[in-house]
């Protein structure tokens, strides 16, 4: 009898050990900077996605200094499950800097939907989505989008399930709870979609951002939501911290740490943006971001034990992705409320920009500077070889990607311009306009980053020219990026 138990116990132990070994292939790493993912083990390979600083990933199969990157929860120790390749020197065993970035949009489809391997009806069928199934979408291509699992954390084209037509998706909003979206309604065609849309146009208790007030605009460059709350102080949410939480001066762990809150302390949080909360004293009555004690990572604040005493001011569904786009997009549906007062901006000196007063120049402010020591460890790479001509310039398109910023889809072009003479603004404008004409798409903005010979194409660019789908928006150059080249 004892022997039988012993054998069963041993078998169970072996199974557990086996399972643990299977789940734990490779190792967990964290990028120390925004990091590109490539389709192969080479910096010249096709760009497939990117990681944000501090993002948790699993890496394995190292070869020539390059590793295959996997979702952190990936259990298939197979290179075909990799979501891209990256240089291992930028992936550290411990996070040194955390700057979470939201990507994609959380959506569901009210009907069963085919997934194809290309952005066309002629693409091969590679799978299907069930009605009301939640997925994440990104990398729009015309009327098609790449579809990802809801749980996907890495923004990479290699992480996608395939392509679906974008028209069949509905956004998952704060109003649509997990069960609402996941469970098919009795009449999914009508009620499911209609409920969600209804919730989207009436966000819960979001205060309309103020129209810039003349005096405020003159004093502070950033117009922020300032509103005296009602007697109950009903804004944001009050949480009891379950652990020690660091507060930072800005929404990045690269900024200065201003304070550490202890476990058990009660604070009020609001202004969720990019995965960071603004943190206030519990009794704070003014909803103004500049009265915040600092910023804290949402994951640390919400944790397991965040008790919400007040309703959330920012519509934050289970996943932060859809909220960002929904919040930042202009909402023409809102004007019924109070008539905005654009009538007042006359004396408003909008001065959003006071670079002279910024921390760099002020001299008095304490800053934490993250020095990226690995930048100088390797020899300088040779310039890319140009392979195209436009506007009298030989150039090479290094990278083309699409991303969302402030609710707008941006096409980003990284271009190496082979020239011996520093191009002036007009030449940059003409050249970029030619590229814009070639790559522009309806309802999308486009930005061209221009690199010149001798520059590090993984670092900041020289020229930055941005367009919307109708005209050029901005053009400016960074002289400092020419440091180390023959142009400076």
């Amino acid at each position, binding site marked *: 009898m004892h022997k039988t138990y012993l054998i069963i116990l041993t078998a169970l132990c072996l199974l557990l050990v086996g399972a643990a070994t299977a789940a734990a292939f490779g190792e967990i790493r964290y990028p120390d900077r925004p990091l590109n993912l490539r389709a192969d083990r080479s910096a010249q390979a096709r760009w497939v996605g990117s990681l944000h600083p501090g993002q948790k990933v699993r890496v394995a199969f190292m070869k020539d200094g390059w590793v295959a990157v996997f979702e952190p929860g990936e259990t298939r120790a197979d290179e075909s499950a990799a979501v891209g390749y990256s240089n291992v020197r930028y992936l550290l065993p411990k996070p040194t800097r955390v700057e979470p970035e939201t990507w994609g949009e959380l959506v569901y489809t009210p009907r069963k939907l085919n997934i194809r391997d290309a952005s066309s009806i002629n693409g091969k069928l590679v799978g299907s989505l069930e009605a009301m199934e939640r997925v994440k979408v990104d990398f729009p291509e015309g009327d098609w989008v790449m579809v990802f699992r809801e749980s996907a954390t890495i923004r990479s084209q290699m992480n996608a399930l395939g392509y679906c037509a974008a028209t069949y998706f509905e956004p998952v909003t704060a109003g649509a709870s997990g069960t609402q979206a996941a469970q098919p309604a009795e009449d999914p065609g009508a009620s499911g979609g209609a409920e969600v849309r209804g919730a989207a146009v009436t966000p819960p208790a979001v205060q309309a951002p103020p129209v810039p007030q003349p005096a405020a605009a003159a004093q502070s460059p950033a117009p922020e939501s300032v509103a005296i709350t009602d007697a109950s102080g009903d804004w944001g949410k009050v949480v009891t911290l379950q652990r020690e939480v660091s507060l930072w001066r800005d929404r990045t762990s690269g900024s200065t740490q201003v304070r550490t809150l202890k476990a058990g302390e009660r604070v009020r949080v609001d202004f969720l943006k990019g995965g960071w909360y603004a943190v206030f004293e519990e009794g704070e009555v003014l909803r103004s971001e500049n009265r915040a004690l600092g910023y804290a990572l949402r994951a640390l604040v919400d944790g397991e034990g965040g008790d919400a005493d007040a309703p959330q001011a920012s519509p934050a569904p289970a996943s932060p992705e859809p909220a960002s786009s929904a919040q930042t997009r202009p909402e023409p549906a809102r004007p019924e409320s109070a008539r905005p007062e654009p009538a007042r901006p006359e004396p408003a000196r909008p001065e959003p920009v006071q670079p*002279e007063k910024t921390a760099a120049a002020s001299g008095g402010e304490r800053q934490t500077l993250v020095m990226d020591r690995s930048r100088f460890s390797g020899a300088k790479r040779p310039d890319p070889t140009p392979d195209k001509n436009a506007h009298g310039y030989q150039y090479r398109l290094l990278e083309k990607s699409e991303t969302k910023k402030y609710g707008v889809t941006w096409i980003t072009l990284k271009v190496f311009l082979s020239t011996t003479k520093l191009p002036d603004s007009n030449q940059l404008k003409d050249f970029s306009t030619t590229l814009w004409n070639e790559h522009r798409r309806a309802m999308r903005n486009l930005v061209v980053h221009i690199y010149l010979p001798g520059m590090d194409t993984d670092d900041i660019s020289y020229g930055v020219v941005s367009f919307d789908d109708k005209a050029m928006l*901005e053009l400016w150059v960074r002289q400092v990026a020419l440091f180390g080249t023959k142009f400076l």
Partner: protein
Amino acid sequence: MKMPKTCLFILCLVLALAATASAQASKVGFVNPQRIINESRIGRIAQDDLARLGREKDRRVRESLMRVEAIKAELEKGTLSVSEEQARERALRLAAREYEMLVEESNADIQSEERQLIQFVMRRADSILRRIAEEAGFTMILTDPEIIGYVAHSMDITDRVIKELDAMI
């Protein structure tokens, strides 16, 4: 009696040697990043770049504000029909919203650019810093002026870093 005295002497000797050794091993230097940004040529170029971006953003914000004011002026004339007036009011709300978002986004962009530029300059300074540290035998270089109570002039290598940075342009 003689034995304890000898032991005590040896102990003192060992302690003295250890103290000397540890003093030699902990040569600490200091560099002030703020001065590098403010006083080096590359730092000043970065500040000019940031100011240029500021002006570009300011231009867009002013244009947006002018659009708001133009619509408002049309409305104030009072010569529009009811339907035209409603259309203008909608346009005014939209323009005001765009203006407001542009101001917010511009500030966020400038802050983000400022961080990028500072890091760009400091990465260049860092390569020099490391070389100087190795040459001069520093085991540690502090970069945060807030935590320094006093630093001897000989240990402050900021001027040397600035000079070498300037020489690279």
